[in-house]
């Protein structure tokens, strides 16, 4: 039978309850050696006591969880200083904080990389503090160890994912910039500057729509408000032409190309014929989730121009840009509705979130 699996009633270093002065546990009838040791044997938290009055502050008590955590047997632990758990990658600054706590008899919590008997590493959240006797003299140091390797791995993974997303985002922005250059230069050399300019504007609008997706790629969805602002940013160099209203609404990244290009067409139209052609023209853009007429969840983005040039009648043709936007939206079972009011265009982009 493995003797680590049953409570051990005593050990050579702490054979009675004298480890705790009456100030801590003396009023509590359960503070007998037996109950203390049974509790220590059962807890999953690794615990040890060291004796700072002896040379090199040796461990004088450890529980079973401490043996399980470190892989060492009790006879290999008792009498040694805790530093035998450290190794080449242990952060000496953290070790310095332990020394400081010991010197100043303070409570401290440090996280450090420790090594098991078999050489494997684990992140140890070490809580340590002084224990005093009845005369208030330092008697032991208490240490509890908790393996927080999982927490460390999760934190490192998140940091890594964010750094990767940022790197990819930066590169893709540069790729979009290079594509823009290629399109312009090609269009120029082939005498098709008008066409290449139109193509480029749409490519760049697409690139901006994806900015928030790229920066937060690890989340899997895109914040609609961020995408809307990014697409419309170049149309508002003075920062006052647009008002944005909408809470935190997230959508699938693949909804973004249709929505981004549609907003680009609306803004292009406004800067040619609408509210962006006058000095005090203004555009309100809002977004929210709603149920469509079939009861499906959908995203609604509302566009409202005011103080633009007066509109006598709807334009005779839809324009190529709006044809493209409509085709993209209807491909995803979405729609663009436009209403020409006297003081400016109203438009609604509907995009189903569930099909």
């Amino acid at each position, binding site marked *: 039978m493995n003797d680590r699996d049953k409570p051990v009633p005593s050990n050579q270093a702490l054979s009675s309850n004298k480890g705790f002065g009456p100030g801590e546990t003396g009023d509590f009838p359960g503070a007998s050696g037996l109950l203390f040791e049974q509790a220590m044997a059962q807890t999953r938290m690794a615990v040890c006591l060291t004796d700072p009055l002896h040379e090199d502050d040796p461990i004088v008590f450890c529980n079973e969880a401490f043996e399980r955590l470190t892989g060492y047997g009790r006879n290999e632990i008792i009498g040694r200083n805790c530093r035998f758990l450290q190794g080449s990658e242990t952060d000496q600054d953290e070790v310095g904080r332990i020394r400081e706590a010991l010197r100043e008899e303070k409570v401290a919590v440090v996280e450090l990389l420790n090594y098991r008997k078999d050489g494997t590493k684990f992140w140890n959240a070490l809580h340590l503090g002084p224990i005093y006797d009845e005369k208030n003299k330092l008697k032991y140091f208490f240490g509890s160890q908790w393996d927080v390797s999982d927490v460390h791995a999760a934190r490192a993974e998140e940091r890594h994912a964010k750094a990767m997303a940022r790197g990819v985002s*930066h590169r893709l922005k*540069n790729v979009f910039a290079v594509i823009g*250059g290629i399109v312009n*230069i090609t269009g120029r050399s082939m005498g098709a500057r008008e066409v290449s300019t139109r193509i480029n504007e749409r490519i760049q609008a697409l690139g901006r729509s994806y900015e928030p997706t790229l920066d937060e790629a690890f989340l899997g969805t895109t914040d609609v408000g961020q995408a809307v602002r990014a697409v419309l940013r170049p149309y508002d*160099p003075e920062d006052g032409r647009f008002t944005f209203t909408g809470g935190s609404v997230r959508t699938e990244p693949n909804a973004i190309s249709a929505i981004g290009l549609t907003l680009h067409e609306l803004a292009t139209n406004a800067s040619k014929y609408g509210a962006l052609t006058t000095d005090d023209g203004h555009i309100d853009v809002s977004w929210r989730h709603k149920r469509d007429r079939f009861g499906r969840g959908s995203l609604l983005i509302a566009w409202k121009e005011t103080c633009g040039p007066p509109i006598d009648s709807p334009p005779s043709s839809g324009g190529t840009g709006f044809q493209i936007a409509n085709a993209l939206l209807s491909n995803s079972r979405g729609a663009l509705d436009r209403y020409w009011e006297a003081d400016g265009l109203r438009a609604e982009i509907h995009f189903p979130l569930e099909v």
Partner: protein
Amino acid sequence: MQESNSILVVEDEPFVALDLKFACEDVGCDAVTASNCREAISAVGETAFIGAVLDVNLGRDETCDAIARTLRDHDIPFVLHTGDLDRAGEYLRGIEAPIVAKPSTASAVIARLQKLNSERST
């Protein structure tokens, strides 16, 4: 040194550099392109530029820091053209130049520089 209506374009990506050069010519300016700080600083010694467009990351860990300081010393206005807004923010905050986010159209970059110039002259 001769008077000019030249714009300095510092950009290590040739397609983007050429696109910016054309956009300069579209508004009646000449452009001198440089792909690193050394070339750019030597160009500043030869031409009296009316403004500059600086890519922030010039490859191989080089940034536009050195040319930005040279332009400051010569009182030549410039805009920063970068896709890495976080890093540009941390690192070039002290320089206080307008930032045009990549990707933007070349004409928008040049328009921002012209606006900066007109703000300075009024």
